[in-house]
């Protein structure tokens, strides 16, 4: 119980002398927090620099052959070379489109089916057993078949990305929709709320935090699906470039592509996390 339980307006009654002591305490506390955050950042940065240094020394001093692991500087120059090459942007564009559509379809089909299975008994009865059965095997085994079915172009990569990113979104949506306080459902029923209002005011917002976790998984797996698809069989795309450069022993080029892809994925991931903090703001309160 807080003070406000018995006397909601009592918080204004702090004596002035005590007030000064409290604000000094709060200041000291926030200084300590700032110092701690700074220390943590210094630790993380130093570790990163240390790894970079080891990498640099090991490769430049010849402990590891440059053909196997290029040095940081080689990788840096290779990044510039790759990015300014004529083939770079067309291939990036192919992959980005595949990722975009794969992610979008995986996300929306997972969310829509998750909601449908949770809301409609006949839908659940009809398809849920199959979705559970299909969830276990690794979806990657479908990659070669999808190339056969949908061809060497973008369609097959999108299909693989959809199949891979669908399940986490579906399962998270379903879990979110069904893990709801039974009393909250009772409350909605007692207010004569029908199916739609219960969904709009209770089930959907209640599911959003778990669904957002699904979106993040969905994103990672959509990228994975597209790249794997391009490895298996493609004539364009980042995965195809990586595969081709690896074949030509242009390892520095491969490294630069991996780094660029990682940065891009991470950037979008952080954007999704930012969206998440906006959408499910009450989790941060």
């Amino acid at each position, binding site marked *: *119980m*807080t003070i*406000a*339980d*018995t006397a*909601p*307006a009592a918080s204004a009654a702090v004596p002035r002398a005590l007030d000064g002591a409290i604000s000094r305490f709060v200041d000291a506390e926030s200084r300590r927090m700032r110092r701690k955050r700074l220390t943590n950042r210094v630790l993380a940065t130093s570790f990163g620099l240390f790894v970079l240094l080891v990498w640099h020394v090991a490769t430049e001093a010849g402990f590891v052959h440059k053909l196997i692991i290029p040095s940081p500087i080689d990788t840096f120059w290779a990044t510039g070379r790759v990015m300014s090459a004529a083939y770079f942007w067309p291939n990036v564009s192919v992959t980005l489109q595949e990722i975009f559509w794969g992610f979008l379809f995986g996300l929306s089909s997972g969310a829509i089916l998750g909601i449908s299975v949770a809301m409609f008994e006949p839908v659940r009865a009809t398809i849920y057993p199959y979705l559970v059965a299909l969830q276990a095997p690794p979806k990657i085994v479908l990659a070669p078949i999808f190339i056969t079915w949908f061809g060497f172009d973008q369609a097959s990569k999108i299909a693989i990305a959809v199949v891979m990113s669908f399940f986490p979104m579906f399962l998270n949506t379903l879990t979110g929709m069904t893990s709801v*306080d039974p*009393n*909250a459902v*009772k*409350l*909605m*029923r*007692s*207010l*004569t*709320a029908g199916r739609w*209002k219960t969904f709009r*005011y*209770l089930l959907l*917002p*209640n599911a*959003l935090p778990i669904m957002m976790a699904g979106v993040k998984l969905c994103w990672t797996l959509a990228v994975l699906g597209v790249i794997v698809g391009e490895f298996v069989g493609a004539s364009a795309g980042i995965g195809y470039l990586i595969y081709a450069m690896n074949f030509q022993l242009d390892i520095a080029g491969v490294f630069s592509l991996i780094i660029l892809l990682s940065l891009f994925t991470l950037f979008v991931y952080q954007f999704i996390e930012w969206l998440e903090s906006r959408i*499910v*703001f*009450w989790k941060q*309160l």
Partner: protein
Amino acid sequence: MTASLIEGRNVSKVYATATAPLVALSDVSFGIEEGEFVSLVGPSGCGKSTLLSILGGLEERTDGTLVLDGKHHDAPRADIGMMFQTSVLFPWRTVRENVLLPGIILGLERKQQEARCAELLSMVGLDGFGERYPSELSGGMRQRVGLARLLAHDPRVLLMDEPFGALDEFTRETMNIELLRIWERTRKTVIFVTHNIGEAVFLSDRVFVMTPRPGRLEGIVEIDLPRPRRTDVMRDPRYAELVFEIRGMLGVDH
């Protein structure tokens, strides 16, 4: 005898379980008058929540009849409000938005609801807390919001399932006094579930004493303590007598 607001005749409820059928309520008969404060007391599992759900039209009866205001009653109604042991506030809505929820769902006039919401929040002592989120409130304050939400659409019957059961003793007592004050002003029909005998006696006009296995209505105790009641009623020898009478019916003192 004039007809009561709520009349139950031989209300029974059997749950189908994995093993044997479970008789949660067996032949419960009662009448509840308009404006009456009735408590249901009894140990866990005697069917209090089940009976309350049936009264709310949320749970089907297996047998018996239930009449509300002269009509058969077996579906949720806007003029019956429910409150639970947990506040069941929606964490994504502010205190104000939570109190406005019943009005939104029932499609009530918004302006009127806003005004009523402000009034109710002030009545439960939460002036200035409208824009807070539930996670920023203590357990007692959350139940106050729950109380305001319960009254938001001005239901005629209040069904309260151990609403203060999860609060500490001090907060519970404060909430009881507050509930009594609100009830004295509004004179709604209240059915209040508790397993705290003292609380039931303090609040009620009549106490329904229930016993488990199977859930039955053991008896009804008229609480003839004067109203309006203040906490000093607990010093009344009659208060102690009534508490002991109910204890006896529940077999607590063997």
